């Protein structure tokens, strides 16, 4: 039961850059700066949005922002002029949608058919899921950001029938 293809870091970088240039940095002046080993990492107040991909391939995509980066992302996406005017709901909506878009792009690289779950957004360090396939870390305006793809472990002896629901 081999997976034909797993996204690599390069493809994930390409997806992240597409999302940044479409929504968060359209003028190309505040890009996501990819840094494989950033000087600091995300912490317990991170905003993390996850989407699950299930079907012919099972996995999760996690998008993590530091709180200031999350607010900036919401301000950019929702065209809120003052970052101070960004509310919690705005952050959840914005980061959730970004995870949805990134998840959709990752999904399209994987064997089909699969479906994408609704995004779940929460605050706090995410427990180590294991099964990390690739990760992009970087900074945006000096604030840490990361995108990670995890494969959900399949237990030996339990088979999943890949039904076509569509």
């Amino acid at each position: 039961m081999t997976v034909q293809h797993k996204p690599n870091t390069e493809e994930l970088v390409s997806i992240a850059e597409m999302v940044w240039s479409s929504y968060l940095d359209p003028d190309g002046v505040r890009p996501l700066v990819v840094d494989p080993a950033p000087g600091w990492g995300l912490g317990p107040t991170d905003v993390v949005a996850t989407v699950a991909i299930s079907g012919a391939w099972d996995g999760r995509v996690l998008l993590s922002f530091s709180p200031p980066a999350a607010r900036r992302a919401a301000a950019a996406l929702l065209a809120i002029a003052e970052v101070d005017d960004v509310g919690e709901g705005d952050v959840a909506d914005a980061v959730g949608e970004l995870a949805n878009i990134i998840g959709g792009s990752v999904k399209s690289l994987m064997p089909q058919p699969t479906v994408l779950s609704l995004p779940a957004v929460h605050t706090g360090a995410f427990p180590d899921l294991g099964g990390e396939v690739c990760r992009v870390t970087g900074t945006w305006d000096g604030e840490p950001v990361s995108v990670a793809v995890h494969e959900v472990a399949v237990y030996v002896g339990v088979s999943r029938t890949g039904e076509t629901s569509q």
Partner: protein
Amino acid sequence: MRALVIDDSRAMRLILARIARQLGFDVVEAGNGQEALDRLEELDTVPELALIDWNMPVMNGLEFVSAVRRDTKYKAMTLMMVTTESEQSQIVRALAAGAHEYVIKPFTPDAIVEKLALLGLVKNGVQV
């Protein structure tokens, strides 16, 4: 002219509504295909344009497109899907169901404007 924006994500509805308003459209929003059909019933005129997400609860975008294309009342409405679904087979399905155009997320505002120009709904950056 009026645009119907259908997406279960508030953030995406905001983004699309903003683009449509900047082009001069009045905007009506809905959170899924069924809500959109309900809104259409309420309106006194048929919107010229619908921007439709695919994955939504209750009634998804593909089902909405099929429903609308079956009803001659909505013949004049241009249907543009705006979605994360980017597999070739999905785009083919959408076009076969009757969608007139298809934009893959992530998109730049220009992408939408240019596709609207292709469809004759926009000229020189303004609705015709």
